[in-house]
């Protein structure tokens, strides 16, 4: 985990502790907190998923998340940010990712939160493998990070 007074970043196998993250996001200057939670869906393209398993290039992922959060803070007046992503197995309906931002006003919170999850999915080195009810597994087709 990487944390300072305004940014908390984490990757790891433990279940997401929502209350602790919300407490970190709350503060007197803030007027809005927007939170996105990603959860494991049971059905994808007609196939039944029993769990997702996540793998990360951890050091690079934390460094890229730091850069993404700085970029977000340069575009919206974000007071505090939390990005936590699970690694390892995440069963159906469990939370795989927590994104939270605190801002003075709600429209910025919605936009900054959406930007973080959209960009995380495009460029942070994390991979998702589906395990289906019939026992087969498949790496989810992903997105090539745009670095140029």
């Amino acid at each position, binding site marked *: 985990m990487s944390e300072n007074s305004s940014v908390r970043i984490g990757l790891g196998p433990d279940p997401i502790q929502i209350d602790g993250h919300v407490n970190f996001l709350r503060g007197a200057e803030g007027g809005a907190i927007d939170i996105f939670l990603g959860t494991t869906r049971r059905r994808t393209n007609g196939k039944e998923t029993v769990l997702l398993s996540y793998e990360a*290039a951890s050091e690079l992922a934390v460094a890229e998340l730091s850069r993404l959060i700085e970029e977000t803070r340069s575009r919206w007046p974000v007071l505090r940010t939390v990005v936590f992503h699970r690694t390892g197995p995440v069963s159906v309906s469990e939370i795989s990712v927590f994104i939270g931002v605190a801002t003075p006003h709600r429209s910025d919170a919605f936009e900054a939160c959406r930007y973080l999850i959209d960009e*995380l999915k*495009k460029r942070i*080195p994390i*991979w*998702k493998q589906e395990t289906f009810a019939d026992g087969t597994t498949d790496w989810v087709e992903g997105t*090539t990070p745009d670095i140029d």
Partner: protein
Amino acid sequence: MFIIVRYYAMLRDVTDQNVEEMEVPQNCNGSGLIEAIIDRYPEVAEFAPYLRLATDTEYISRDAILTEGSEISIIPPVSGG
């Protein structure tokens, strides 16, 4: 010279390696490293257009010149969230 190469996700499955040493010519760049990997694992060719290279802390261009002992991660298309 030798480069330390790390594989993730579907590339680890294809190569059956987490990390290995790869011999490449002096002044090899990122594209040259990918070619060396394809020489050893022809199945990697289908992924080649979609791969990124990275150090422990940042993505690097395929034009970047590699140095002896560099640790390079091969990043297939990402799918977090």
